């Protein structure tokens, strides 16, 4: 596990990141919906695809934006295109980052406020089998420098054995055990593409 320091967030990095995120979601749309079928309503891939398409269009419209405008555009696209549970959560995450980014561009600090936003918006805690179970451990990896694809995969995998207590999967109770959480998976893609975009030195 490579111990690497994270890059500061810039407009270029963010744009590259969103391009790669688009590709990853596009590639895995069916898989995300499949994950959402046994424990949800089978639309997470479609929802996210609408979202990243909106992000692409939103960013294309911006002329020489600063980081705040960039993050805000991402947030608004996600909020207005995704719908469902994941839309407000991803949207809030980027909105919180936009609010904070004039103060700091350190990924760990921005992801920390994003995670707080997600928790506040959705009320989920760690262990509830949601995207929080990827965001929370990953944010922690920044402090000990263990942020990496391995850690991301581990976090995503960890949702498999959990019993859902938030979102649609919670209606299944115990029967939700044994399935990966789709929102955890898409959050995994988000962090992986951050790495691929050069988010670590």
């Amino acid at each position, binding site marked *: 596990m490579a111990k690497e320091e994270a890059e500061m967030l810039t407009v270029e990095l963010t744009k590259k990141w969103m391009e790669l995120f688009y590709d990853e979601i596009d590639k895995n749309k069916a898989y995300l919906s499949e994950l959402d079928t046994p424990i949800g309503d089978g*639309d997470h891939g479609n929802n996210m695809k609408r979202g990243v398409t909106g992000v692409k269009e939103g960013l294309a419209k911006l002329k020489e934006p600063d980081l705040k405008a960039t993050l805000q555009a991402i947030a608004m696209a996600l909020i*207005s295109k995704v*719908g469902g549970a994941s*839309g407000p959560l991803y949207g809030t995450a980027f909105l919180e980052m936009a609010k904070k980014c004039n103060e700091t561009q350190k990924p760990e600090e921005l992801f920390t406020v994003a995670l707080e936003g997600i928790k506040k918006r*959705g009320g989920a805690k760690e262990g509830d089998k949601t995207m929080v179970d990827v965001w929370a451990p990953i944010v922690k990896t920044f402090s000990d420098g263990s942020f990496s694809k391995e850690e991301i995969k581990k976090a995503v995998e960890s949702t498999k054995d959990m019993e859902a207590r938030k979102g*649609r999967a919670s209606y299944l109770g115990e029967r939700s055990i044994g399935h990966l959480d789709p929102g955890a998976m898409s959050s995994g893609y988000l962090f992986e593409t951050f790495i691929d975009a050069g988010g670590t030195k």
Partner: protein
Amino acid sequence: MKQMKKIINSPQDVVPEMVDGLVRSYPEYLERIPDTEAVVRSDKASMKGKVGIVSGGGSGHEPAHAGFVGKGMLSAAVCGQVFTSPTPDQIYKAIQAVDQGKGVFLVIKNYSGDVMNFEMAKDMADVDGIKVKSIIVDDDIAVENSLYTQGKRGVAGTVIMHKLVGAAADQGASLDELEELAKNALPHISTLAVALSAATVPEVGKPGFELADDEIEYGVGIHSEPGYRREKIKTSKKLVGELITKLDEQQHLDPEKQYAVLVNGMGATPLMEQYIFSHDVLDKLAEKKIKPAFMKVGNYMTSIDMAGISLTIFELTDKKWLEYLNYSVETVGW
């Protein structure tokens, strides 16, 4: 697995085309809010000086919610993608479109997505200085309530809520009064469903779950959320027996009390079956010496093409509520 067979064009266009078809078929009641999938009353005079009522949610529950827009019921409804909550910007536009300075009341079904998106819209309206209050409907007793989970789902009882607050708003109730009405009524509304088949979301192309040719499932949600038990198909009488037993545990049915009953088809269940089911409901209630003070049978909160039926029992502890249910409305769906 059966192939999807639907009267549609492209699965991606289902919602905009459906909203367009509805609004253009009923211009006397409905108008589209520009650049949205939201529908507002065309009779603007009917909203003057009154609190606006906005509801909505994922599409696939037709006539809910847009079919309940009209004088005496909803002021506007926001139509999300199929089985997907609408986005806050659209809800926000609906709030703006109906606000008359008296505030806007939101009727939200209890799903994480709906709750979060409507809350974000509320935040946006706050910034505008529009007063917004809301009720989160969670009438489906198939799911245990718990502080530690999302809790019960909002299903057909939501239509009862639309009717109550719609009628009260039309009679001039204030935002606070509507909130109180909604809060008081909510715990008295309970619903339980039985499914014979699952819904097929057009973009998915296959049913949300599979039931054998002779199987039914109790407690299924309106997005094909799993229920609490599968069984061989039973007579209508026995299905009714199971649902009423469970509803009775919740509501403690009492011949001294008054009830409203809503029998709701899930989309592919013919009225023939709904009326037979209603016959058995009325028989079962009569055994308990109960005769509903209000009853309605039909497709109100559907689940696309699901075959199945839900039973809602609403205890009328306040005599105003019966008046609200009987209050005349001008809508496509009620």
